[in-house]
């Protein structure tokens, strides 16, 4: 009798394992227009991990949000209602994430952020089904503030675009930077000409410039800064120095210090294999965005190995455990489901003909975000 029930239980457990539902992932990311390089890197990193896992019970639906919040919301509705996805991911921009994530998690879907980490979602607006695999927006900027202190900078001029991540950026820098501010500016999102700002920097008497201008904005700023003859040291987050845009900036970026949670020379086997596989597959070096996409997919795959997505509590616990080999080495989630991780200082160098980054120091170690205390879940 005992034996029979044990056998039955085993059989049921087995049946349970084989009948585990497929996981359907909806990826909403930016694949056209000015910010496309970022979305394409996240997608390629994500899909590389999916194809390496060889799983046939994981389906990914990919759609382009064109960097527009309204389109992102429509896509999310479509994916939740007609595609019936279990997990959403992919959004690059914080304003889009704010438009999509709260509604998606409220409907019981999981959201794994491969990039955007706006402060409200880390603090008061946190949600058990929301996991950020990249960083909270402030993190890289906080590390930059700490680095500026260490290198003896006393008087920074700071600027960022006028949108949620821009405000998080300057807040993050100011949280750690102990010196004075020679000036603080918010520029228009998507602005391409920085002559007026550079003239103000020149007149401000600052000893350094901290700027957060992701993508094409950073390219424009760096080229114009180099031509202006202002030679104050620049510090920035990795977003203006990622692999995708360095070649377009050229010499103007050489030697600039920037902060990142990832670089291709982080010394662990997973990272080395990732960089090699990414290059073999796509013919270019991965950026930090690609690394974030890759980690996001591997986190998801690790959770699929442990729990059924239909059992939300078990799946959530499996995600929280973050039991996967990250390209960043150690990886763990804090209580608000945001990473607790090391953030490095990198320097832009030239390897042969290719501009890339090299880690020169650890900016902050085992760093968590400042909003975790506000998160009640």
């Amino acid at each position, binding site marked *: 009798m005992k034996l029979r029930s044990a056998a039955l239980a085993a059989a049921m457990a087995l049946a349970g394992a084989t009948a585990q539902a497929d996981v359907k992932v909806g990826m909403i990311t930016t694949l*056209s*227009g*000015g910010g*496309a*390089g970022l979305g*394409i890197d996240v997608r390629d990193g994500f899909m590389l991990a999916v194809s390496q896992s060889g799983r046939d019970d994981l389906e990914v639906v990919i759609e382009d949000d064109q960097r527009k919040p309204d389109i992102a919301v429509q896509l999310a509705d479509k994916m939740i209602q007609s595609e019936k996805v279990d997990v959403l991911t992919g959004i690059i921009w914080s304003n889009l994430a704010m438009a999509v994530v709260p509604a998606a998690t409220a409907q019981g879907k999981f959201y794994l952020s491969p990039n955007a980490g706006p402060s409200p979602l880390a603090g008061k607006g946190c949600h058990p089904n929301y996991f950020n695999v990249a960083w909270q927006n402030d993190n890289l900027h906080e590390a930059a503030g700490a680095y500026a202190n260490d290198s003896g900078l006393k008087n920074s001029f700071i600027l960022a675009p*006028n949108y949620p991540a821009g405000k998080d950026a300057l807040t993050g820098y100011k949280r750690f930077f102990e010196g004075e501010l020679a000036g*603080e*500016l*918010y*520029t*228009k999102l*998507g602005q*391409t*000409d920085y*002559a*007026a*700002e550079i*003239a*103000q920097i*020149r*007149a401000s008497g600052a000893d350094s410039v901290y700027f957060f201008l992701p*993508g*094409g*904005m950073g*390219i*424009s700023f760096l*080229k*114009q800064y*180099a*031509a*202006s*003859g202002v030679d104050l040291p620049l510090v920035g987050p990795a977003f203006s120095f990622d692999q*995708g*845009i360095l*070649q*377009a*900036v*050229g*010499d103007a970026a050489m030697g600039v210090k920037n902060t990142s949670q990832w670089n291709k020379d982080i010394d662990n086997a997973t990272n080395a294999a990732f960089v090699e596989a990414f290059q073999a597959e796509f013919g270019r070096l991965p950026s930090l965005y690609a690394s974030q996409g890759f980690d996001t997919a591997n986190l998801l795959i690790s959770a699929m190995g442990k729990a059924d997505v239909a059992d939300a509590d078990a799946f959530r616990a499996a995600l929280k455990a973050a039991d996967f080999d990250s390209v960043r080495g150690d990886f763990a989630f804090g209580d608000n489901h945001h990473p607790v991780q090391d953030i490095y200082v990198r320097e832009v160098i030239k390897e042969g003909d290719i501009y890339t980054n090299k880690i020169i120091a650890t900016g902050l170690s085992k760093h968590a975000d400042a909003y975790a205390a506000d998160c009640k879940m």
Partner: protein
Amino acid sequence: MTTLLFIEQMLNGLQFGVMLFLMSAGLTLVFGVMGLINLAHGSLFMIGAFTAAAVAAATGSFVLALMASLAAAAIAGALIELTIIRRLYDRDHLDQVLATFALILIFSEGTRWMFGSFPLFLDVPKVLAGPVTLPGGIEYPAYRLSIILIGLLVAAGMFALINRTRVGIRIRAGEADREMIAALGVDIAKLYTFVFALGAALAGFAGALVGAIQSVQVGMGEPVLILAFVVIVIGGIGSIKGAFVGALLVGFTDTMGRVLLPQIFALFLEPSAAVSVGSALASMLIYILMAGVLVFRPRGLYGVT
């Protein structure tokens, strides 16, 4: 703010305005002469920048790159005029908007297909890298100074073309009454192709000039296109003079607004609030200017009434 900084910011405003003029000259002619709303004008700007980047990478010569951008944009302009735009003159504006919007998508994705999604590299020529010292001790980037000079030269050339040449007379006549000029034996189809290609070439030239100090990427033309529309609405549709004055007005207003507004608000608000209110208002300023102009001059400053 010191006088020197003020003068430097005025130069920045002038440079921005001159660049906007190159972009809006073609747009206003096409709208004025052919009555066509061309949303794809920004794509021609992008074509100019990409051509310049590709040619500069292949040959290393910035002058060649500029020439190539002029030629490529003019050829692209002539081609789309002959194949697509020509069919749109008799349709209403909504059809034109739809068709030229489709052209934006085709050009953007076509460029992505050819050049990839990542920005291209285009640098200022070595001679013009770095700053020059102007009288009074202002350090100003040599390249921006050249943009101002080139832009003013092109503007002078355009005035001469419109006011002093036979083609110019025809263009002005076409603006006033296109049936009549056709009846007088002018080959209106050829004239239209010429005007469109000229506008395209100027847009492509602007793209190449600006590409050297900005990011050469897919979609770079659309933000400039919006500004160019603001310029021609302020200046009066169809008027080159209007486009020039409008472009300088927008250039100065935008630049000085970005600089001055946060400082003005800082007089009576706390610093962080002043920065955010000032920046927000500065980005609206040119639209407020446009609305203001339209209240008093519904057809723009130099529009034909």
